[in-house]
């Protein structure tokens, strides 16, 4: 049996690989607040979104979570499901966001990051640890998400712009 590897598959593969690599490096960095990571791997997702559209970006995102989980040894752990719920929420948001005209990677980055954090929080609060105290963390987490979403958007935009110019 032969699989035909399309050009799209190849794109997804290299983007996902890049995202996973960044994810694994980031996972080993210490984080000041529980559950808060800069989300640098999101930059790859945003770039994928810009170049190849939502479908590719979605694949890259999911592959990143699963691959990062397998490589990091956290597959199917509570941390893994937190990542997954964040990724799913952020993808849903991105799908909706593509309907807003005129957004650049910055806008997508902010929306995706907020949704990502919200998705993680929702899982943490309703499934893992229903506790009112968690609510007090939410604004802090969302502030961080906003900051990191904004910066990953800027980075993505710069990266995309640079590469587009290089190719032109």
């Amino acid at each position, binding site marked *: 049996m032969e699989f035909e590897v399309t050009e799209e598959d190849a794109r997804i593969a290299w983007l996902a690989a890049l995202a996973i690599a960044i994810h694994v490096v980031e996972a080993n960095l210490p984080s000041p607040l*529980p*559950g808060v990571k800069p989300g640098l791997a999101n930059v790859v997702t945003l770039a994928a979104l810009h170049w190849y559209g939502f479908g590719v970006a979605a694949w890259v995102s999911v592959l990143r979570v699963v691959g990062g989980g397998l490589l990091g040894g956290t597959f199917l752990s*509570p941390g893994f499901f937190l990542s997954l719920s964040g990724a799913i929420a952020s993808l849903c948001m991105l799908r909706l966001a593509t309907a*807003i005209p005129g957004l650049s990677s910055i*806008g997508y980055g*902010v929306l995706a990051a907020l949704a990502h954090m919200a998705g993680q929080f929702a899982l943490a609060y309703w499934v893992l640890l229903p506790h009112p105290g*968690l609510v007090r963390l939410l604004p802090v987490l*969302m502030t961080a998400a906003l900051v990191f979403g904004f910066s990953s958007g800027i980075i993505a935009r710069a990266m995309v712009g640079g590469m587009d110019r290089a190719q032109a």
Partner: protein
Amino acid sequence: MTAADRWVVGAALALVASLYVWSWGGPLGLDTGGSNAGGSDAGGSDAASVVAEVVVAGRPGETIDLGHDGEVEVQGRMGPSRLLVQDARVRFTASPCRGKQCIHSGWLAHEGDFAACLPNGVAVEVLGPERGLDAINY
């Protein structure tokens, strides 16, 4: 940054700001006169009636009296988490999770201070008069 981006960022800022207001109960909601007006002979803390609540996987668990030093062990999803009470503060000292974020959260002393070991399903929050107990009888 496009105009649409600006809209998104502005809306995001508004959302986050309103989250602070909603979850922390308002920045101007202080009581007049303040508590412990005039201080106390007991070294300035109302530790005797401050408690911390331990929550395990969503169920309310032990309530810890921060007025007395000691150690508490809590059985979580993955195994036992250990808490230390000292000088009216409490902290995680041991937990079976990988990241040890709970331990890195350090000492919890004031009303609302909170730490959690998510993988183990154990959380600790310091309650104060508004949400907890007004006095301990012993």
